[in-house]
């Protein structure tokens, strides 16, 4: 096991820069998720850590040792690929034992270790099969087995769950978390699914266009996103944004062009009249009784009702300006599309971002 440090990493494809000076420090045993939309450079970063791609600039250190020019096989890392990349011409046992065989370990030792790993992952009955005889979930497990069999310094996961169906995805996600708790190996996990990142990681690094937007603990990112991009990306359903103008006289609040008053807990780092984005998570709205528009309740019209069982999500059109807002209620409220509704945002939970740059202001 080892700590992993990326210092000022850049990557160019020809003249096109794709990674612009990324710094990430990963502690020994930490589980870090790299998330971001497609093309943000997360997979490229992972492949650079693995040694499958070279970094154009910067330093990659694994356990303190500079590995920029070290070939993958000398980095002692293991990787789980998106499409599993199991060797189709080998049995499950041979797939699992391949790395050990390359190390020149004796046959008995390989068999013992493969047996141990198969037991951890429940692969014992499948050892003599070939990958094509396995289901998607089983292949996924073999790919993980191949990674853990040689006790590497770090695990790299490249969107490992994206080829599984929804139910299996949740199951394997739990298995990955349990595995990390059991083995405590430094892990870098790439995904575009923020739910995976939130549930698995000790720390999340949000990337966009080859830059780190924010890095922090999952709930830290959820509660205090550094900018509108992170705010929108982390959390499902995602945060609501209502554009407006900052009003500081008579209590800090955001006033929209159609006159909605959105109260803020304290004055943000901005001037009176600045264009801002008011952000509120779907669960931070409460129902208000009809007609008390005076104390900050917002008039809204129901567009779509989506009951999920645990909560009811209601898509609303708010104010005369028709701002799109999605609110989630723990209670099973009985409303129909077209009906009017009064919403009260919880002021303590409000976020404010600069309208132009997206930077957090409160």
């Amino acid at each position, binding site marked *: 096991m080892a700590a992993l440090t990326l210092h000022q990493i850049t990557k160019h494809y020809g003249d096109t820069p794709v990674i612009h000076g990324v710094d990430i420090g990963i502690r020994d045993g930490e589980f870090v998720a790299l998330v971001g939309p497609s093309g943000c450079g997360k997979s490229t970063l992972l492949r650079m850590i*693995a*040694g*499958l791609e070279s970094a154009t600039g910067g330093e990659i250190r694994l356990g303190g040792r500079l590995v920029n020019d070290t*070939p*993958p*096989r000398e980095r002692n*890392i*293991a*990787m789980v*690929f*998106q*499409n599993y*990349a*199991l*060797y*189709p*011409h080998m049995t499950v046992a041979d797939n699992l034992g*391949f*790395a050990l065989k*390359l*190390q020149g370990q004796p046959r008995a030792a390989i068999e013992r270790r493969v047996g141990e790993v198969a037991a951890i992952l429940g692969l014992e009955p499948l050892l003599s099969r070939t990958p094509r005889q396995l289901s998607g979930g089983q292949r996924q497990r073999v790919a993980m087995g*191949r990674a853990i069999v040689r006790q590497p310094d770090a695990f790299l996961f490249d969107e490992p769950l994206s080829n599984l169906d929804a139910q299996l995805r949740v199951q394997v996600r739990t298995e990955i978390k349990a595995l990390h708790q059991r083995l405590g190996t430094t892990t870098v996990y790439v995904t575009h699914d923020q739910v995976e990142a939130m549930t698995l990681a000790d720390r999340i690094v949000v990337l966009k266009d080859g830059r780190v937007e924010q890095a922090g603990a999952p709930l830290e990112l959820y509660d205090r996103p550094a900018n509108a991009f992170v705010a929108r990306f982390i959390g499902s359903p995602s945060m609501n944004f209502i554009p407006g103008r900052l009003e500081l006289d008579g209590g800090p609040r955001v006033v929209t062009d159609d006159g909605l008053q959105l109260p803020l807990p304290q004055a943000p780092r901005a001037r009176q009249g600045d264009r801002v984005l008011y952000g509120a998570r779907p669960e931070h709205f409460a129902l208000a009784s009809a007609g008390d528009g005076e104390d900050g309740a917002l008039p809204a019209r129901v567009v779509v009702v989506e009951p999920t069982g645990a909560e009811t999500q209601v898509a609303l059109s708010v104010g005369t300006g028709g701002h799109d807002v999605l609110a989630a209620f723990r209670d099973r409220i009985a409303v129909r599309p077209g009906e009017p509704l009064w919403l009260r945002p919880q002021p303590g939970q409000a976020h404010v971002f600069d309208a132009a740059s997206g930077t957090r202001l409160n």
Partner: protein
Amino acid sequence: MASTDAALQIPALDTASGARRKRPGRLRRHGRAAAALALLAATLFPFLWLVQLAFKPAADLFDSSLLFVPTLDGFRALLQGSFPRSFLNSLAVSTLSTAMSLAIGVPAAYALTRWRFPGRRHVALWILVTRMAPPIAFTIPFFLAYRWLGLQDTLLGLALVYLTFNLAIVIWLMQTFFEAVPTALEEAAYIDGCGVWQAFWRITLPLAAPGVAATAVLCFIFAWNDFFYALILTRTQAVTAPVAIVNFLQYEGWEWSKIAAGGTLVMFPVVLFTVLVRKYLVHGLTAGGVKD
């Protein structure tokens, strides 16, 4: 009873509903089959004619009747002459040139597939161009060079000539087979501890093995079928089977039984190999065209 009734009813219903559409379809299908048979007969006729000739008694060789007592006299006569040696020469030359073509061409194809160096397309194209030049263009240079090098009338010399022609085929066919092997498998192998060579040897090559086999057979057949260079570059020692057969056309007379028997023997491995590998060969020529 009931089952018979049902069996009778189903086709009745079927024709009632689809009669208008089916009849022209059936006609077209039969017409197509008949055309295919006619084409097949025309194509196979020389081949079958030669084979029956090989088994005919020498006395009624040109008797047009298909009724005869098959004899192996032609084959027996072949065995007594120098034909067996020529046959072995053919085998040796074809095997040797195939082995050399694969040894050089397979790694070359791999490099062309995976290594994105500048000018890669040009290199690949110029390799193919070597195959396009007419053989006659190289005859005199080869002849003179071989005389000087002492490679004339040697098995190695002939195998080297075939190598130059087969390399292009190996490199082009194997590229499609290597492209069909996902790079992620090699990357997984690098991470598992392989170097480039080990990943190639342990992962990529085994997965491309059917392609290698098909390519090998194709190379073998090209070398095996060559008549032109074998005629020019051999005299007595390295004569191959096709040349030996032509030598049965002599001033004293044409030994038809031997020619037919020899021709049949020379064709045999080609037919056998083609049947064995046609599946892989078609795959190799079309791989990558359709997403699996």
